[in-house]
């Protein structure tokens, strides 16, 4: 892989990173903050990582920062068993409905489980890659993944969404 400059990388890959960050945080502002934080952590070591896999490196920082972040502004987001109900959008707003339902379904997951699910299914990382990115064992990835999927499979938000989309997917 050819070496890539930091500015060039941010211009090319930050939109994709923002999408991952949105799935992790469920909020556009927090997603931007998370990506900027991950980039700021990557910048001092850019000369080293630019020759290898800079995106993988930044993505690992992103997920790890999200999973372990304890700062005040992040503590406001606590997983709850029953997230506040939102008004169901009409069919005309199906796209927004999809994002909102997924956001609500993910909101009930603890931070670690959420990071595992997003890395495995959105970023298509393997169990070993996910474990390396989050700094946990493969066994932990498996157990977190199993628990997260069990919660998501029974999530009323996703079941309703699946039904409204015709149950075809």
């Amino acid at each position: 892989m050819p070496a890539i400059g930091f500015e060039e990388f941010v211009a090319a890959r930050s939109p994709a990173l923002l999408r991952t960050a949105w799935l992790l945080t469920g909020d556009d502002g927090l997603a931007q903050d998370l990506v900027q934080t991950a980039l700021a952590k990557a910048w001092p070591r850019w000369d080293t990582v630019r020759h290898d896999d800079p995106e993988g490196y930044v993505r690992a920082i992103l997920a790890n920062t999200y999973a372990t972040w304890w700062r005040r502004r992040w503590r406001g987001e606590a997983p709850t068993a029953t997230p506040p109900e939102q008004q169901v959008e009409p069919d005309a707003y199906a796209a927004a409905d999809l994002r909102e339902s997924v956001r609500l379904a993910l909101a009930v997951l603890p931070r670690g489980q959420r990071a595992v699910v997003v890395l495995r299914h959105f970023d298509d990382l393997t169990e070993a890659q996910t474990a390396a990115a989050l700094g946990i064992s493969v066994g932990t990835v498996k157990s977190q993944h199993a628990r997260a999927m069990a919660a998501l499979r029974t999530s009323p938000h996703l079941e309703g969404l699946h039904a409204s989309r015709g149950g075809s997917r």
Partner: protein
Amino acid sequence: MITDDQVADLLRDAGNDGPLPRPLDPAVAVSRARRSRTRTQGLVGLAAVLGLIAAVEAPTRSVLDQALGAGSSTVPAEQHWWAALMPVWALLLVLVVAGLATPVALRLPEAERRRTLLAATWGVLSLVVLGVLGSWLAAFLVTPDTLVDNLRVTPRAAAILGWSAGLGLVSFVLCWIALLARRALRPAALPPFRGALWVILAVEAGYWVSIVALAPGLGSRFTPSLAGVAAFGVLVLVALAVGTWCSRGRFGPRTLRRVGGVTLLVAGSACLSAVGLEALQVLPRALTEGRAAGAVALVVLVAISLTVSLAGAVLALPPGARPWAGRLLAVLATAAPLAAGSLLFQSLTGSRPVGALSAVSERMVVVLLVAAAVSALGALDRRPARATGDDAAD
């Protein structure tokens, strides 16, 4: 119930839905990384200074102990003299280094972080030099009539007063120089001469109160006489007048509120620094010896001093985005350097810290207090600019 694959599909669709977000600005991440690196370097530097102090502390302390008459000394007299004045050399060295850095910093933009940091350092130094002798000088004002009586009968009293006045003048001049440098780096800061006068008067008023408040523990000779109370009243009134003079003579409720607030903040912080240090050194002993009443009295004094300082900060500072954080920073930026100065004075007189401070070197505490104060004042200076006319309280 839906399947794992269906969950994964929904997740992928939701994440990829809509137009691609706009790319982020890399400058933000770079700036954040640089700030973080600067912070790390600062902490590493602070740790290095503390380590250095710890490394040289033991030999210096033994020399100092012998210099101060611990008995059979085998160290040459010149070494005693140098060792005993070590805190003064350290303070002068910091002043010289800051003085050399100032012309360089003046070439930087006004809002540049390093320039702000140096301006904050000068602001803190202006208070440290006042903290060294502040309490000593205020003690003369508690019972000035007794002092006058002593002057008539004891030639030694005249010598002590002369030396004290001379050293007080040196403190004032150093404070003036520090404020001069701060004003050069930060034009919105206090005018140097009037500012130094204002601050020294407020500091002395605060120390006067602390001496009187601590009088039951220090002995009856610090119970204020009528002349002492009059001296305190004059101190406060002149401080308020000089503060108004600092505001270029503008009168009005807003100016008076700010002048009163800054005077209260500085005086309260001086009192807080004296009472706080006393509490740190005396409380553990008072608690172990079962003197609960004294301990409670000290805690109450600390609480009152803190409340007065905060009240001064409330009056002095316009409400910002996080007003209480700003007010606490103001109290920290004022009280910490004064406490550092007092500890330097203790170090100079060879009195070891006791109580909660006995486990650490007073020089380490001084460095930590100064670092905390510079950080606090730097953070205050970097707050958004105030409205016109609010600039004289810096």
